[in-house]
């Protein structure tokens, strides 16, 4: 080695990578916060007439101690909450001016305060149960979270799974049929992933083996799932509703001790087995993806399949396995519709939840925990709409129904922007 080497900076020390003070600052967050906060102040606080009160119920039976409802004056409450929002916007602006990022907690607190301001206004003169609102948020998040994890299993290995919708639908169908025939809700829970697998194996066959564009296959498989389940529903289930489409429902199971914690207990630990399976799935997947050999290889395949191939990892087999596994996870989520929610299969009953699951996956940055969080956000929007439609609030129901979709658009466009997913997702692997 020549002596010249010694004169170079020994370590890579990427000096040029240090963020420069000249770096462009993003004012997106403070501006969004400011506009929303101002809107809340005017619409929820200043414009409505005063004199009404809003009641938030936070108690539930069977907890260690009973929390009493609390009631606040609607107008004053909304004004105070809006001002908190504006204060957070100001704080964010101050942070950005100093060249920092506002911090994640700011967004979270802002969101809570803003939603509370909205609720204070919307249920003025009435009462809303926070516990049941959160409870149903979690329940409604179940298919979304399972779907999102089904999606991320595929995408982490480089296969975009647009067919989540189809997997949820066939899962719902399979669960209803098998649970009805066997009179066993557990048999239904086993049938759901198997039914999801049907769509998953077609997805793998066409995208991995035949390298057809993944988005196209996904979209077409969703059509196929709708056609197939609707056809079988109309020709087989409908004429035999009593025997083939009356599955037993999942019952809530209280977890001893934990279920008695106020607020948290009723929300998290008085749920069906499907919800507990979701907790398990999130934990297991998080560890598997980021702490095990399997996860490292899967992520390598999704980021740089050729590199994975050159160290002896079978790219195609990994993709097959992950797509199949993902479709089973999504299919399990489909059981929610028939065994957990409605109690029987109906045509196109998933109503686009699979696409929202896809959005939850992106919003959750392709991680199980993030997906769960995003699914909860969508579940909350959905639960809110259901609660408010019963309460006869001053917002048209159709506009509330739009909410989850609008939240998705804002989230994908504003919050996520150009997030980096697995680099090779969507790309078929061609070696020779």
């Amino acid at each position: 080695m020549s002596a010249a080497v010694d004169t170079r900076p020994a370590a890579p020390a990427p000096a040029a990578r240090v963020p420069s003070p000249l770096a462009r600052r993003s004012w997106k967050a403070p501006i969004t916060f400011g506009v929303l906060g101002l809107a809340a102040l005017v619409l929820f606080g200043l414009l409505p007439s005063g004199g009404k009160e809003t009641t938030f119920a936070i108690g539930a039976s069977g907890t260690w101690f009973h929390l009493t409802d609390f009631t606040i004056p609607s107008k004053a409450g909304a004004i105070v909450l809006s001002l908190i929002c504006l204060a957070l916007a100001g704080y964010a602006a101050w942070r950005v001016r100093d060249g920092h990022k506002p911090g994640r907690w700011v967004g979270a607190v802002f969101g809570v305060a803003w939603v509370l301001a909205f609720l204070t206004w919307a249920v003025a003169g009435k009462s809303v149960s926070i516990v049941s609102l959160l409870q149903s948020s979690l329940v409604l998040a179940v298919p979304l979270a399972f779907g999102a994890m089904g999606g991320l299993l595929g995408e982490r290995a480089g296969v975009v799974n647009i067919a989540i919708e189809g997997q949820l639908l066939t899962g719902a169908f399979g669960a209803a049929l098998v649970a009805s025939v066997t009179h066993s809700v557990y048999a239904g829970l086993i049938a759901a992933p198997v039914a999801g697998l049907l769509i998953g194996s077609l997805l793998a066959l066409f995208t991995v083996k035949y390298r057809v564009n993944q988005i196209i296959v996904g979209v077409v498989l969703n059509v196929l799932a709708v056609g197939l389940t609707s056809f079988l529903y109309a020709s087989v289930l409908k004429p035999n509703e009593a025997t083939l489409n009356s599955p037993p429902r999942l019952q809530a199971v209280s977890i001893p001790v934990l279920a008695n914690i106020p607020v948290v207990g009723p929300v998290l630990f008085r749920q069906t087995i499907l919800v507990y399976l979701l907790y398990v799935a999130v934990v297991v997947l998080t560890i598997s993806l980021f702490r095990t050999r399997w996860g490292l290889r899967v992520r390598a395949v999704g980021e740089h399949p050729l590199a994975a191939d050159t160290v002896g990892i079978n790219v195609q087999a990994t993709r097959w396995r992950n797509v199949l596994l993902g479709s089973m996870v999504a299919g399990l989520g489909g059981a929610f519709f028939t065994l957990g929610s409605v109690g029987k299969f109906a045509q196109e009953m998933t109503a686009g939840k699979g696409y929202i699951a896809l959005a939850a996956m992106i919003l959750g940055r392709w991680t199980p925990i993030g997906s769960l969080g995003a699914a909860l956000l969508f579940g909350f929007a959905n639960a809110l709409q259901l609660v408010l439609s019963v309460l006869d609030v001053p917002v048209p129901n159709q506009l509330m129904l739009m909410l989850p979709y609008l939240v998705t658009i804002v989230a994908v466009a504003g919050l996520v922007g150009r997030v980096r997913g697995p680099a090779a997702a969507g790309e078929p692997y061609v070696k020779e």
Partner: protein
Amino acid sequence: MSDEILPGATSPTIGMPQPEAPTPGAPAGGATSEDRAASMLRRIATGEIGVSVLAFVLALVIGGILIAAVDPDVTKAAGYFFSRPSDLLTAAWDSVTQAYSAMFKGAVFNPDAATFQQAIRPLTETMTVATPLIIAALGVAVGFRAGLFNIGAQGQVILGATLGGYVGFAWHLPVGLHLLVALVGGILGGAIWAGIAGFLRARTGAHEVIVTIMLNYVALYLLSYLLTTDAFTIPGSNQPTSPGVDESAQLPLLLGDWSRLNAGFIVAILAAVFVWWLMTRSVIGFRFRAVGSNPHASRTAGVSISTTIVLVMVTSGALAGLAGAVQILGTEKQLSAGIAGSLGFDAITVALLGRSRPLGIFLAGLLYGGLDVGGRVMEAATGTPIDIVLVIQALVVLFIAAPPLVRAIFHLPDPTAPRRAKVRPEPVVKGASA
């Protein structure tokens, strides 16, 4: 199909090792005329057209198996299969042929009809149903060829129908002008709706697949909300339907009262010609294709990617909106929550089936229209649920997208492989250019 459609413009490409420098134009050697004729035959049997036909046959066969499987007569015969196996086959054959022949009679030509008009009425009905499908599919195809997945044709159709319909029933303009303004209203509705997705994609990188899907639902609820307002409902009624569109805004019938076929069909033909010209003969289309094929090179060549993305989406949505307007001004005549049916989603499969080419889409649209119309007749005649049509449609597209699968099923040789004992994949030229 993958040679036409590339994933999103900002999607990264994987560095593939290139087989070193393919030498250009190394012809296989002197082919005799006999060879050439044989290879021509082989190409027809195994090439694009052949694969399309076989894919359709395959989808019909699978659909037939499903139809037979759920038929009560067939199930009954299956119960005593081992004593009289022929009964099962007869029952299955009957059930499938009855369903499919009902479909054909309902979609193309009814030989049992009393008059010629009645006999060909199914065909004109197919053309009527195909009209908005073709126009919307042309929109989807413009997106595909520019590398954008406009999954939101459904929402754009709804907006187009809403705006076009509103102009039709709420404004009262002179004959001629009224129809024109209503059509333009529909075009604007779709263009704006798709433009939102294009703008978000260009400005924030939000993937158009997610945004357009979400906008479908927003459009659906927006329409059902509008149908509760005074402006969109018949005064004094709380039915969620709008007043009928004025006579002056309706697309005139082409064949007289006995058929619903209207001038929308001519609009569809004009739209197909326009898209052909746009994509192959115009500077804008050149840029659309360039961005779809290689956004990086397009950017370096001075094409603004964001402007192009917005333009592509606006064009795509404008066509879908026109489809919505044609639907309401030609056949439906009044606005209801279900105005778009599943038009926007079907348009995606039609665009895929037509390989994003105007002529292909025109034919694929007629095929789909026929399946829909025939399916309804079949359901009424034989009790087979119309949903089987969706299954057949989805299968056709899947099979067409994977020619090797179709060839494998029918044991056909690969026309792209050199005629040798060993069949090997071609070198990846694509990886470099993507």
